[in-house]
C-alpha cells in the first residue's frame, strides 16, 4: 500500500493480503493494471484465437502451437490442459520449443 505503512505483524499480513488481491482474478475491462494476456493469444471478441483475420493460422502473431502451451503456462483463463500444478508437472518437458516440438504434447491418462 502506498499511503499506509504497516508497522506490526498483523498490519503486515493485511498489507500482504492487499498485495495478493492485486494479483488475483481481475476484470478484463478494468483500468490499469490490465490483465495479463499472453503473447500469441487474443481475446475472444477479437479475431485470432487459433485463426487469423482471414480464417487461417498463417497470420497469427505467434504460431498457433503456441496457444496450447501458453494456455498451460501463463494464460489468465484456464482451459482444458493437464493440471501441471498437481498431477502432471512434466507434461511439457518434451516440448522445449512449442513451434517445433508441439507434437510431443500429449494427452494425459491419469
Amino acid at each position, binding site marked *: 500500500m502506498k499511503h*499506509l*505503512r504497516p508497522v506490526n505483524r498483523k498490519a503486515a499480513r*493485511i498489507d500482504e493480503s492487499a498485495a495478493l488481491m492485486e494479483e488475483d482474478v481481475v476484470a478484463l475491462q478494468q483500468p490499469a493494471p490490465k490483465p495479463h494476456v499472453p503473447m500469441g493469444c487474443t481475446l475472444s471478441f477479437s479475431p485470432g484465437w487459433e485463426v487469423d483475420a482471414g480464417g487461417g493460422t498463417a497470420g497469427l502473431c505467434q504460431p498457433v502451437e503456441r496457444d496450447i502451451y501458453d494456455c498451460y503456462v501463463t494464460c489468465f483463463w484456464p482451459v482444458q490442459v493437464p493440471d501441471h500444478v498437481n498431477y502432471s508437472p512434466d507434461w511439457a518437458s518434451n516440448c522445449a520449443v512449442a513451434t517445433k516440438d508441439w507434437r510431443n504434447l500429449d494427452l494425459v491418462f491419469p
Partner: protein
Amino acid sequence: MNDMTVIPSGRYRLGELHEFSAADQPFMYLVTAGAIFSLDEGAHAVLRRLETEELSHGELVEALLESGYTRQDAEELIRELLFVQGIVSDKARLSPAPAPSAPPADFPLQALVLNITNQCNLACTYCYEFGADKIATPQGKPKFMSLETAKTSVDFLLRKSAGRQAVHITFFGGETLMNFPLLREVVLYAREQAKAQDRGIGFSLTTNATLLTDEIIAFLSDNEIGVTVSMDGPPDLQDKRRVYKSGKGSYAVIEPRLRKLIANHKTRAITARVTLTDGVTDVIRIYRHLKEDLGFHEVGFAPVTNSGERDYMIDDNGMDEVLRQFHELADEWLEHALRGQMHGFSNVSETIGELIQGVNKSHPCGAGLGLLGVSPSGDLSPCHRFTDADTHTLGHISTDIDMEKREDFLSRGHVGAKYECQSCWARPLCAGGCHHEAFVRYGDTGHANLHYCDWIREWTDTCLRIYGAVSVLNPEFLERFAARKGLS
C-alpha cells in the same frame, strides 16, 4: 490497488480505530485487527476530515482534489483506507463481529501451573490465597502435593498437549519452596518423559525467596528454571505487608538470598513481581531498588487484587500517582530502546511483545485454554489463582477436564460476552482483564474489570506511542520482542 474491495458509494465515516502520534508521525491502531499502520499526510487528512462529518465518495474525492491530490491518487487513498477498515461506508455491510462461539473443545494444553503446596511461611496481608478476599476452600484437602499427583499431572500435560513441540510447567504455592523436594523430583521426571517423546519442556517458579539456599539456587540454575520473586521493594515497603505470621518483615531474610540467587543463577532471567498497595505506590523507588541495587533483570508491577473494600487497596489518587510514575519509567524505557538497550520495566516490554504481533484476544489470558492450574489434591482449575476453590474446579488430573464447566468459564470470559468492552478500543489487548480479579470484585469471572478501564486505555496508549516511536527511530529493536510471548 484497483481490485481491493471497492465500495464506491454510501457515506464514509471513521472505522473503529485509535489514533496516536509518535516521533512526529501519525499512526492508527485498528481495533478489529490489532494492526498498527503509520499514515502519510493524505491518509491523516482523510481521517481528520471524517472526524466531524460523514462524506460521500464524491465529496471525499473532491476534498482531496482541492488539497492537490490527483484523482487516481485520491481514489487509491480511499481504497486503501476502506480495505483496512480505517474508514467504513454505511452502505457496506461489514460482517458483524463474530458472536462468542463455543470455545474450542480440543484446544491442546501448553502449560500447567502446579500448586505444589497451599502452605506459606509468610502471611502477607493482601494475599489472594489467604487474605480477606480469598476464594480458596482448602479445608480437608491435602496441604502438599504428593509425588504421585505430580507425576500424574506431568503425564496429563503431555497427553493433553498433543501436537505441541514444547510445553511448560510453572511451580507455584503457597510458598513453592516449602515443597522443594517434590519440585526436584518433578523436574527430573518431566524431563525424562518429555525426552522420551522427543519434545521440549520448560520450567519456572514463583517464590517469596525466604527459603532459597545455595543448593536450591544451584539446582534452579543447572535446570534452567525461570524464577519470579514476589516482593514489594526496599525494606520499608517490603516489610509493610510481606510479613511473617508474627508480623515481622521479610526483607532482612530475603536480601542476602536474593543477592546469591541473582549472582549464581545464570541460565534464566530473574524477575521481580511487585504488588502495589495503599502506601506502596512509589514505583520508581521500588524499581530502582530492585533493578539497580539488587540486580533483578526485570521488574513488573500490578495493583493488588481486592474486592474494592480493603484498607490495603489503592484509591484513585493512588492510582494516578502510580500511573504518573509508570509514565516516567516508560519514558526511560523508550530512551533505552532508542539506544538499543533493554530496560527492565516489564509492564512496557510485555505490552510491546503483544503489539508487535498485533494480538487480538478472545480471552484476557490463556486460563482454561492452553493453561490450567493443579491444586495439591490434583483438582484442575482455570489457573493458579483459582486453586483449591470449589467454585471453580474444572475436573481432576486423574479423570479429565470437566468440559461443561470449562465451556461455561470460557463462554463467560469471552470478550464478545462483555458488553462494556464492545465500544473500547483497547479490547484486543485487555479483553476485559483478569478472570480472577473480576470474580473477586464482581462475583463473576465474566465481568469486565471496569475499575481499570481508564487506566488500561491510558497505559495502552502510552505503550502504542512507545511502539510507534521505536518503529520509526530504531525498528530493528522491536524484533527482540517478537518471540517474547510465544505468540508467533
